[in-house]
């Protein structure tokens, strides 16, 4: 892995940060704005994980370990949602 690649990734990250701030100032609406912000954050996070943390170059087991926490968190969100989204239905 070359340091020049790291510098390019960094540049992209800074640009994305600029987008994030820029989007904050645009009138995008109460739903779109946070979602878009999180999406951009996701891309930034992904770049850091793949390149800065070098997950792109590592084997399957390591990627599994990396994903395990996120998957478990996803289950937490999903099932709690079944409560909070449906509480007022009956």
């Amino acid at each position, binding site marked *: 892995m070359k340091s020049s690649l790291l510098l390019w990734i960094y540049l992209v990250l800074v640009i994305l*940060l600029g987008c994030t701030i820029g989007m904050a100032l645009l009138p995008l609406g109460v739903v779109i704005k946070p979602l878009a912000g999180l999406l951009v954050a996701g891309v930034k996070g992904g770049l850091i994980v793949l390149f*800065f943390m070098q997950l792109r170059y590592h084997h399957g087991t*390591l990627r599994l*370990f990396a994903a395990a926490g996120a998957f478990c*968190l996803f289950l937490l969100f999903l099932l709690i949602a079944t409560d909070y989204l449906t509480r007022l239905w009956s």
Partner: protein
Amino acid sequence: MTEHESQQGCLDPVAEHLADPAQRLDIARLGVWLFLSTEVLFFGVLFLGFTLYRRSYPDEFVAASNHLNLWLGGFNTLVLLTSSLFVALAVLGADRGDRRGSTRYLAATLALGLVFLAIKAFEWHQEYQEHLVPGLNFALPGTDAGWAAHEQLFFCLYFIMTGVHAFHMIAGSGVLAWLILRGWRGHGPLSQTESIRIESTALYWHFVDIVWIFLLPLLYLTGFN
């Protein structure tokens, strides 16, 4: 014993149960990534709480978010991204066994980390002066009690989330300082042990950076219209 040192596996020549350097490196990486997975859940609960209450009280949360300083938050993000770049460069240097180069990059990382913490402390001080700290001096004059209560909920989450994040930053900074000291005092190329320590710390640092990257839109960008 710091959490990072204790994940290094066999580090002294006496313990022979890990004789193979490749195995040692792999084991260290697996250990660190697994630990980071636990941290995902640790922070994740806070993100969950925030999401649920944001959904329940959207207007109050938007209003509360407006009190935060977007520019400081954004600048701090830039600081952390740059620190991540430096620590990643430190790892590249460590891979090559370059003691001086990697130690310098680690120092740059630490410096930026401390800048982040200083700005965060400044922000908190500002919020304290504006009477926005729950449990200490929270007061929103001119709003009705129910609205103020929900805004206070936002600030509970804000201080807890940025507080836990800052705690992780402080711990990481401590480890960086220790690594820099050892790197500076040692001679010759870096050993595998030292290189593993640097890589593990870097992974932790990147993770803490990613947490902040998600905190930024959630906390600071909810508001602003």
